Structures are given as structure tokens and as C-alpha cells.
């Protein structure tokens, strides 16, 4: 094997080892890299009131209530467990029932959280508005196109 190919092999091996090392670090710190917990994941965690957490899930259907002009109450669900959220502020445009959302706030007790900020999460589906109307007309609209 010539010198240049020895160098090539050496570089590639170094890259593989480097990549493996970084991946090991990332996967072992997984719980610190996730942006949010789901309500079910939160139950397993040791949390006390006043802790700052981010919770992600869907806004539960028919749970959104407007208390006053800019005060809202709704439930975040992952279809197994719910979490009651109180929020004072402006909701993003995409925020509605059945839609994914991430909230950041302070834990009040096991099932209640005071949100400091609310982010709407949107999925990877893109579709022209006219096609949605067409699908709904023919009852072809699937609920999983959130």
C-alpha cells in the first residue's frame, strides 16, 4: 500500500472514531438535549413546584378556554396523560385545539403548570389550501394531517 493510501485510510479511521465519540456523548446526554418532555415523561421525573420545564404535546380537543382578554386555560395531552396549562399572553397564530404545541413554564403541582411562553409546533406536511377544501368536501380529510 502506497503512502498516500495509508494516509487516506488513517484519515477515514480517525473520522469514524471521532464520529463515534461524538455520538456516544450526545446519546448519553440525551435527556439534556431534548427540547421538551411529554406529559407522560414528566410523571417519571422528580419535579417540585417552581421548576422550569418545557412540555410538548397536542392541545386537547375542547379544552381551550379564554378566561379573560389574554388569559387562557387549556390541556396539553400525549393521548395518555394530560397537563392543565394556564397562560397569560398572546397565543401564536397556528395555536389551536388538536394542534401540536410546546409550552415553557413553571410547575405548580403534578398536573398544573403556569406557562411563561407558548410555541406552536407544526408538522412536516405541506398542502395547498384548495386541496384541503377539496378533501373535506369528499370526506377524504384524514385527521392525521394536523
Amino acid at each position, binding site marked *: 500500500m502506497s503512502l498516500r*493510501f495509508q494516509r487516506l485510510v488513517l484519515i477515514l479511521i480517525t473520522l469514524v472514531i471521532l*464520529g463515534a465519540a461524538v455520538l456516544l456523548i450526545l446519546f448519553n446526554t440525551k435527556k439534556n438535549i431534548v*427540547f421538551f418532555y411529554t406529559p407522560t415523561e414528566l410523571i417519571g421525573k422528580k419535579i417540585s413546584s417552581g421548576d422550569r420545564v418545557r412540555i410538548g404535546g397536542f392541545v386537547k380537543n375542547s379544552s381551550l378556554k379564554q378566561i379573560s382578554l389574554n388569559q387562557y386555560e387549556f390541556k396539553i395531552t400525549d393521548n395518555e396523560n394530560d397537563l392543565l396549562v394556564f397562560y397569560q399572553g398572546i397565543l401564536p*397564530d397556528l395555536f389551536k385545539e388538536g394542534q401540536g404545541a410546546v409550552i415553557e413554564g413553571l410547575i405548580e403541582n403534578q398536573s398544573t403548570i403556569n406557562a411563561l411562553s407558548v410555541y*406552536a409546533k407544526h408538522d412536516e406536511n405541506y398542502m395547498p*389550501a384548495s386541496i384541503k377544501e377539496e378533501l373535506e368536501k369528499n370526506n377524504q380529510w384524514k385527521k392525521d394531517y394536523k
Partner: protein
Amino acid sequence: MFGFLINPSKFNKFADIILKPLILLCSVILIAGLILVYLSPLDYQQGLTVKIMYIHVPSAWLALLTYSIMTIYSVIGIAFKMPFSFIVNKAVAPIGAVFTLICLISGSLWGKPIWGTWWVWDARLTSVAILLLIYLIIIFLDKTFENKEVREKTTAIFILIGSVNLPIIKFSVDWWNTLHQPASVSKLSSPSIDISMLQPLLVMTIAFSLIGLIIAILRIKAEILIRKNR
């Protein structure tokens, strides 16, 4: 046949033939792409805001592609001691940095109306921000050492180390919970993006690639000239 990819004088000859047709082609495709974007339908959820995608996604792809090209050239540059690799690395690093910056700015402008925030530190956004920092370090590394060989080798090694960030960016949305949505186009099942929106996206991607390629050719030619006259 592919000698122009590693030999400066062959590259110069090839570039002189291809540059003018390339500029013409790029202008046509860019105009066609912009017309397609103008005519493209509004999204059922995001409305008009979805059109930011036609800038955001191509620049993100190009930022990653530019870095991949630099990685390949760094490997052959160090292994086979080809000076042309280091010319390419120096020439295209700022192009990749600008694409990354466009991606971050357009993404921020997109995030505010849709998510409700300019910026969050989730895995996807953070890893792309790190990519921008890596690009900046590569650009500045070239202004450090006096000795040309040391400088080029150091830069190439740094590019190789930084390349571990590429798979992290790509898979960050699958490995961790992020606010950023998962991939729409490059996934195993059929793309979850309607064909009427996929077409303008792909045409814009080709236009962005050609813009990057033209700037790269001009910068590589300039760099070859500088080194010849030194």
C-alpha cells in the same frame, strides 16, 4: 476526464468554457423559480408564510452541501497532497457561511409568525448555529499561520473535525424532541409536501446551487491567479 476537479490549469480551461452558459442557465432557472414561487399555492395552515420555505430550505441544503464538498476536498488534500483542494477550501468556505446565515435569518423570520418565537435552543437550530461558527472559524483560520503548508493543513484538519456536525444537523429532528419539524422531502416514504409546492422548491434549489457554483468558480479562479503571481 474529471481532471478539472483536481488540476488548476485544467480547471481554468474548463471554467472558461462553462462560465458564460452557466450564468445564462442560472438566470433563466432563477427567474423561472421566482415565477413558480409567485404562482405556488398558499399552505392550508400557514398561508402566505409558507413561501419563506423556498428561500430557507434551499439555503439550508446548500450550506450542508458546501460543507460536504469541503470535507471531501480536505480528505484528498491531506491524503494525496493536492494543493488544488486547499484552493477550493479557501474559496468556498465564505459561500457556505453565507448560505448558513441566509438559512438562519429566514428561519428566524419564519419562526416568529408560525411558532411564536424568533429563536429557541432546540437541537436543530443549535446545530445549525454551530455550523455557522465552524464556517467562521475556517475563514479566520486561513488568516492565522505565516507558513502556508501549516495553515492549509490545520484548516483541512479542522474541516474534517467539524464534519461530525453534518449528520447531527440532518438527524437532530429524528433523534431528539425539537420544535423544528422533521424532514419533508428527504425521507424514505413519499415526500409529505404537495407536488405543486415541491416543484418550485426543487427549481429554487437548482437556482441556488448554480448561484453558489458560479461564485465558487469565480473565487477559485481568483485564488489560482493570486497563488500564481506570488
